[in-house]
């Protein structure tokens, strides 16, 4: 089978993640949707690695996972600090940096 179905699935996962980031209100839910977007990108990296016969795509997926781990650690620490100081998890209650 060709590469096209893999690319479509990866695009669909990315789009679902993007819609979640735009529509969700809970900070942790937005984080989960960002992880979804990263995984959509990872899938097309691995698919291209397979179909071009190169190893570089998989090395990039490895790096994306490292960045996702660091991002999750720092982001969840920020979430805990936010909850401790404001007693909220809603992004609408933490928009002081927005304006």
């Amino acid at each position, binding site marked *: 089978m*060709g590469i096209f179905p893999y690319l479509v699935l990866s*695009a669909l996962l990315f*789009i679902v993640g993007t*819609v979640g980031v735009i529509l969700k*209100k809970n900070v942790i839910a937005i984080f*989960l949707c960002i992880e979804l977007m990263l995984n959509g990108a*990872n899938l097309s990296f*691995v698919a291209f690695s*397979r179909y071009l016969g190169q190893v570089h795509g998989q090395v990039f997926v490895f790096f994306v996972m490292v960045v996702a781990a660091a991002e999750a650690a720092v982001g969840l620490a920020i979430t805990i600090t936010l909850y401790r100081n404001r007693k909220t998890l809603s992004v609408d209650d933490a928009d002081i940096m927005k304006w």
Partner: protein
Amino acid sequence: MESALFYLFGTISLIAAISVVAQRRVFYSALSLIICLCALSALYLLLKAPFIAAVQVIVYAGAIMVLFLFVIMMLDPFAAARLTDKKKWLGSLSVVLGTTMLTLILPFLSSYPRNLMAAQAGVVGTERIGRAIFDEYVLPFEATSILILVGIIGAVILGKRRA
């Protein structure tokens, strides 16, 4: 056989992904994301990338998602449903947004040769990935170790209670 497995695990991962967005409670969103990650790891096996599939299950579905679940359980897991407002138009708005983005992306996807066949290289084993990381990509690899260190320090400092 390959396409049957692709459609099976692709459907599972897509349904789980939609469930991540659709769930009211963030705890169930996290559980759906774990299902999605495991289905994706099966797809990686299908793409003959066993190392990435194993790392996906061990690091992503194991370590990172457990971190998420820890924080969710710590912060009042089932009260978070209060955050979601029950506006009816949110569901249809998400569908409209999704189809718009898909129509924007699809022309780019179609620009790749549709019946590009898999390269004959066979399984990209752990050995080849290890050689690539420690030979060609050794500088980015060391940079990621600094990134992880900075992440740990940042998490500790942010999580520390002010005296």
